[in-house]
Structures are given as C-alpha cells and as structure tokens.
C-alpha cells in the first residue's frame, strides 16, 4: 500500500532529526512539570475514596495542547517547508497520488500522537502519581486518535492557503491559540461570557478538549465515549481533508 510506504519513510525521516523529535515529546513533559508548579496541585479524594493527584487533571489539557501542536501546527509548518524547498514539486512529478501522500502524513501524525500521549501518561504515572483510567481507557485512546486525525487534516488544509513560509507561524498561531484559550483547555471558561463559549463550540478544539477530559477523568461513569463531541471533531477532520484536496499546493506560491 502506497500510503503505508509513505508513512514508513516519513517516520524514518522524523527520527533522523533528533532535535525535532526530542522536543516534540519533551513539550508535554515540560508542562506536566510546569503547570502543577505554577498553579498548584492539591490531592483530592477519588470516586471510591482513593487519593487522586492534581496532576491527573492537567494531563488531558496538556495532551490536547501537545497533540494539536504535533499535528496541526507541525503539519502546516513542515508542509510549507517541503513546498518551499521543492520537495512537493518533485513528488508532483511522480505517479504518487495526492491521497496516498496525505494519508501517509495522517498515519504518521496519528502514530506520533499515540507515542506522545503514551509517554506523557507513563511519565505522569511514574513521577507525578497520575491516575490512568482503566474503564475509560479505550475511549481516551479513540478520542486522542480522532483528534490527531482531525487536526492533522486541518494542518494540511491550512498549509494550502498559506502564501509562504514566513506567513506560517503567525497565521498558524493566530488560528489556533485563541481557540485553545476559549475552549476550556488551560483556563476554565465557566466565568467567560456565554457568547464566547458559543463561538468556541463551533470549532473542534472545544469538543476535542471536552471528550479528552471526560475520557481521562477518574470521575467519569460509563465507558467515557463522548460521541457527540467525537462526531464534531471527526466532521471537522473530514472537512479538513476535503479542503486540503482543494487547496493543496505542490509548488511555492510566487507572484
């Protein structure tokens, strides 16, 4: 399968750039250390009387942030560079199909996300006493992978409309950071005006964060699958792919 082959080479190239790989995985761990240090971390009693460390509640937020960075931001930026360097134009001259190239990237994003979350949760458990849910674990994994798919697709989509590499960081940040702030990821938005939350609910970050939070919370009853939230995230992902096909640029845009 062509996409699988693309994924394999993408993956090989990824690990050959140790600085990029190392900080992709270090990023959430830094926050795992920073957040409790800044905001404090009180232990609270769990649903069956056990002690749950405050770090447990930081993990989903940090996970959401790290996943979006590793998929949305990262794909938008690396595609811009690949376009500017002519790697994409070279690919365009081969029989490789657009869909196989995109699918390979999405598979790579989902794989990296899986590792990223596994490492964060494991380090969290070993060093910060983070409680890993057992009953809702499948829901947590499905949620994380759905988010990886959707934000990777959206990253590919936005790269196609960006005019050049220099425009990459400001536009990508401007498109994602405000959403992270209004979507109850780092800052509780309970006191925010209602219209702001209404706006946030249009976009996928809010729903991804909510589904992740619920599937990782020790207080969740049932299997933890947030089907409504997951569906909205997935629809954004599919829309991302459709837009990506429309806007994908294989050559640097010059005027």
């Amino acid at each position, binding site marked *: 399968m062509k996409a699988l082959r693309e994924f394999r080479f993408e993956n090989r190239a990824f690990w050959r750039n140790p600085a990029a790989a190392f900080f992709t995985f270090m990023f959430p761990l830094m926050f795992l250390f920073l957040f409790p240090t800044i905001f404090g971390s009180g232990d609270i009693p769990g649903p069956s009387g056990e002690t749950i460390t405050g770090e447990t509640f930081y993990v989903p937020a940090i996970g959401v942030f790290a996943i979006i960075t590793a998929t949305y931001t990262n794909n938008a930026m690396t595609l811009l560079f690949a376009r500017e360097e002519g790697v994409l134009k*070279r690919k365009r001259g081969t029989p490789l199909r657009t869909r196989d190239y995109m699918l390979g990237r999405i598979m790579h994003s989902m794989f990296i996300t899986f590792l990223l979350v596994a490492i964060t949760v494991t380090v969290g458990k070993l060093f910060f006493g983070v409680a890993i849910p057992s009953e809702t674990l499948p829901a947590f994994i499905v949620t994380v992978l759905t988010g990886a798919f959707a934000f990777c697709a959206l990253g590919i989509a936005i790269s196609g409309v960006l005019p050049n590499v220099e425009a990459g960081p400001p536009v990508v940040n401007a498109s994602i950071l405000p959403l992270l702030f209004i979507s109850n990821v780092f800052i509780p938005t309970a006191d925010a005006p209602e219209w702001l939350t209404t706006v946030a609910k249009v976009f996928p970050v809010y729903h991804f964060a909510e589904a992740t939070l619920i599937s990782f919370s020790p207080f969740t009853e049932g299997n933890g699958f947030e089907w409504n939230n997951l569906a909205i995230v997935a629809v954004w992902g599919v829309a991302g792919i459709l837009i990506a096909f429309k806007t994908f640029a294989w050559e640097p845009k010059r005027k």
Partner: protein
Amino acid sequence: MAAKAIEVSGLHKSYGSHEAVRGVDLVVDEGDVFALLGPNGAGKTTTVEILEGHRHRSSGTVSVLDHDPGKGEPTYKQRIGIVLQETGVERYLTVAEAVDLYRGYYPNPLGVDEVIEIVGLTDKRDERIVKLSGGQQRRLDVAVGLAGDPDLLFLDEPTTGFDPSARRGAWEMIRNLKSLGKTVLLTTHYMDEAQALADRVAIIAAGKIIAEGPPDGLLQTADTITTIRFVKPSAELPPAISYRTTETGFCEISTSEPVAILNELTGWAIQNSVDLAGLSVARPTLEDVYLQLVRASEKGKDQ
C-alpha cells in the same frame, strides 16, 4: 524513421496578458538527447513544464509518449523522470533510502544500487543527503529522476554550478543514459554542453523556436563568421586584407570566406618571408550562432 517521443504544435501559454509561449512546434525522436536553449524568460521553462505536466497550456497540441501531459495521468508520470532545479528531497534520508522511496512510486523501477551506480554515487550510498556536496546532490537529483526507469528524462540545467571536472562527469552520465536508450530533453545555458551531448538542439527566444537542427547543421546554415588570428607582423599586410589590431598585438580578421583570405594571406607571407606567429583559424562555435540568432530575434522584436 524513428518513433517520436515528443510532438508539439502551435503551443501557446499566457499568464494573464503576458504571452510566455507563442506558437512553439517541436519534435523529439525517441532515443535522442535534445537540447532546448534560450535566454532566461524566453519561454524555455514554461514549455518544458507543460511537457512535464506541471503547467496547463493555453492552446496547441502536445503529445509526449502518446500521452497528453495536461491530463496529469499517473500512467504518464510512470514513464517520465523529471530533474528540476531547486527541488529538494527528504534531507534526513540517505542516498539509498531516497532512491528507494522514489522508485517505490513506479511499477517497474530500476534497482537501488543500479541507479546509484549510473550517477556515480556508489561511495555515498549510505550518506545522509544533508551531508552531500552541491554536485553530489545534483547527481542524487538525477538518480531520483531515473529511479522509475523512465523512457523520457527531463533534465533542467543539470550542470549549473558544477566545477569543470564535475561537468565532464555529468556529461559522461548523460551519455550513459542515452546508451540505455532513454530520450533526454535537456535545457542548458552552456553551449559547449549542448554541442557535446545533443543530437539536436532548438533555440527558443521570445516564446518561439528560432532555430532547430543538429548542432553541426546549425553551425553550417547560420550566417557565421570565421576568425583568423596571428601576431601582427612588422611588414605591412596586403591592402586587400582588412583586419583589426587587438590590444595584445594580434591581428584579427573576421570573414565569411576564410579559404580565399587564408590563401591570400599565406601566399603573401611566404613571398615576403613573414612568420605569421600564433596563427589560428577559429570556426564559429554554437555559442556564436546562438548569440547571433538571439540578437537578431531581439532586433526583430524591437522593430
């Protein structure tokens, strides 16, 4: 008669109101090395990119290997190899891995080591691409273009920026490709390169082909001038010979009738026991022909 690899007629391409290509006709035989020459902005790259399938034409008919490149069919791309300038490759892979990645896109590719040997990178097989020199990266470009065992290879200025020995190496490589039976469409700014490699050349200026034929044929048909040079003797030259004196003390005679002039000159020299030191007769090069044709075309455009 050889089969045709490329047939183009009446090709036009406009970008907005600017007409980059205005009526190009072109035929390339299978198995030929064909060089497309022309100044920057003459429509050379646009023409080649239309043939490669990177650009859509405004009008005209184009057939490459019996395909219409404008349709972007994978079955067409399976049969061509494209080596452009300024196209990167996954930098963190090794030479062998990059060749392997790209050969995987084709149904009947060449072997990894076979390709690497053709371009002369066997020593660098397992080197990361980031660590290659400029010349080696260019060879890798060709290797990647060749990996799918294409019938037709597009080479866009393959030796720009090479030192002289690297250029000779690249020429050897292109001759190898020809001996493998590949058709090669080459663009270059080096006339000696075209003269050394091409079976036929076409010169494109202001969006049109202004001359086409085998390099030697172009030299003969063009209205070109032979230059005779020798150290200025102390004796006065016969009045029938008009010459100019260079700053370095040479006489230079430009003529379209070198035989008659040489006859008169050498006859006079023997009679008067004059030693024509440093005597040389230079036939026009492809570069002279090229410059003459391009200038003439520019003049024609101004009028």
